């Protein structure tokens, strides 16, 4: 059946090219084989349906979304009252900050991840130290290098705000001022998570091409630039990019060592996923703990089974590529300024730098020609579209 569909799509493209109408197929349009077609289709459809997070009882609640949106921009969540979540996750910058490494109270070791499509994540942060969006939302509030607040500070300031206190009572059925401070902060983080779950990247030119391919619409397929089509073929084929940047969100949700230096500073290593798993296990806020609202712990399986391995050293999140053109600089340390730099990195990747026997053998220098590199960048740019909230 798939073979038939592939043939039909090829015939459709050919048919469009032969039609007497003016809409000719570009002479360099890419003809995808059966395996390539299947690989392309696996990157959709988009957007995905929303399902509430069972670990967060206010996930999907419009009142929680409203409270979370207000808190996201509220500097009272920082110890010195000068910074908010939006300082490093600026909606005008695709919910990132454009810096190589973010600047909270201090300069941190990692790049600010663009906040979008987070409901699809299994792990959060570059090292996956949190297993829920609310758990991740707590971390920068308490981190001394970032917002550097205490639960008592946050509770005291927000409980004095009548609107916030009323919203809190409606959502959580308790008075914010009377709540145990850590529980109050967890609940506020759950409202923050409810808001962040609504940040979803819109459909892109790639999605239009992918859907046209699925229904065999040659005319719509022909509107996708030929360079992007060639780049897409590299992405799912020789480049093997889609092995990790898998599925509709262009990430398998896991971690890899891709040869980026992991020294956060001279003599100081960023432990990456290795430290992330240790932090996850030690956290009272993980999904196995008492703050999970789901008695069945139905989403805690990965936390229960994740295994720390030697190869986790130097591994960092496989980031989603949706909206990638708007989220420079790249990599966990923001060390690559442009998409061209990223493609060059993979084209010439230093396999000696990767962990010897432990390292994944999936990476190898691609030695792309200048045109191939440009095609891959052209494809990556078609994964982006302005966020509605950023307009």
């Amino acid at each position, binding site marked *: 059946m798939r073979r038939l569909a592939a043939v039909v799509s090829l015939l459709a493209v050919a048919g469009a090219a032969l039609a007497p109408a003016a809409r000719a197929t570009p002479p360099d349009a890419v003809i995808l084989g059966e395996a390539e077609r299947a690989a392309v289709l*696996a990157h959709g459809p988009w957007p995905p349906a929303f399902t509430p997070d069972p670990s967060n009882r206010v996930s999907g609640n419009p009142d929680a979304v409203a409270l979370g949106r207000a808190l996201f921009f509220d500097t009272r969540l920082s110890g010195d009252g000068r910074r908010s979540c939006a300082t490093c996750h600026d909606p005008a910058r695709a919910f990132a900050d454009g810096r190589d490494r973010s600047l909270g109270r201090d300069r941190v070791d990692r790049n600010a991840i663009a906040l979008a499509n987070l409901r699809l994540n299994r792990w959060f942060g570059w090292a996956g130290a949190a297993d829920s969006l609310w758990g991740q939302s707590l971390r920068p509030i308490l981190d001394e290098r970032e917002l550097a607040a205490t639960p008592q500070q946050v509770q005291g300031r927000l409980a004095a705000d009548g609107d916030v206190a009323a919203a809190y009572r409606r959502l959580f059925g308790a008075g914010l001022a009377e709540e145990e401070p850590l529980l109050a902060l967890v609940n506020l983080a759950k409202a923050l998570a409810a808001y962040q779950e609504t940040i979803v990247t819109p459909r892109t030119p790639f999605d239009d091409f992918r859907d046209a391919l699925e229904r065999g619409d040659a005319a719509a397929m022909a509107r996708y630039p030929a360079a992007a089509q060639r780049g897409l073929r590299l992405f799912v084929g020789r480049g093997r990019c889609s092995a990790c940047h*898998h599925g509709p969100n262009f990430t398998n949700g*896991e*971690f890899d060592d891709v040869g980026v230096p992991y020294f956060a500073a001279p003599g100081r290593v960023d432990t990456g996923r290795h430290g992330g798993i240790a932090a996850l296990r030690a956290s009272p806020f993980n999904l196995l703990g008492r703050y999970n609202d789901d008695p069945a712990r139905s989403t805690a399986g990965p936390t229960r*089974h994740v*295994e720390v391995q030697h*190869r986790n050293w130097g591994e960092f999140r496989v980031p989603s590529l949706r909206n990638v053109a708007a989220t420079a600089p790249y990599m966990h340390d923001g060390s690559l300024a442009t998409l061209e730099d990223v493609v060059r990195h993979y084209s010439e990747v230093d396999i000696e730098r990767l962990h010897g026997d432990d390292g994944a053998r999936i990476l190898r220098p691609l030695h792309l020609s200048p045109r191939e590199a440009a095609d891959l960048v052209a494809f990556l740019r078609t994964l982006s579209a302005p966020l509605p909230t950023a307009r």
Partner: protein
Amino acid sequence: MSGSRPAAAAPPRRRRRRTVGAVCAALAAGATLSASPAWACEVPEGFMRLASPEAEIAYRWVPAGPKVGRLFGAEVIACRAPEPGPPSRLVLDAQMPAHGHGMNYRPTVAETGPGRFRVEGLMLHMAGQWIVTFDLYQGDRRIRLSQTIELAP
């Protein structure tokens, strides 16, 4: 005369072949049964079989059809093993030979009856070829069965 022939009227040679085949099957089944102790499996519908000269299991994935990046489990029934008595332990693992890595998750295995196991916490995080290994233990003796999975993107 041409045309179809009732099965009962098969020519003598074909009948003889069928008889030989049936005897072989019966012998094979008898051999299996004779080697099968009381814990041998009664395989429910939907289970797949995996055999080596030393051992045989029946298993099914739960839910059926592993997908990239989704936790899944397995039910495993030991059907045949070299030593008397059911295997006391099962270790299930998976490797991706082309990439030189295994899973990022360690499954847990619970014994649900003699020679029966329930596995939870498997995840194959990339599309491609995976080799799943079922290690049955009888005392210190390990018997390995392996199965290739081609995971679609």
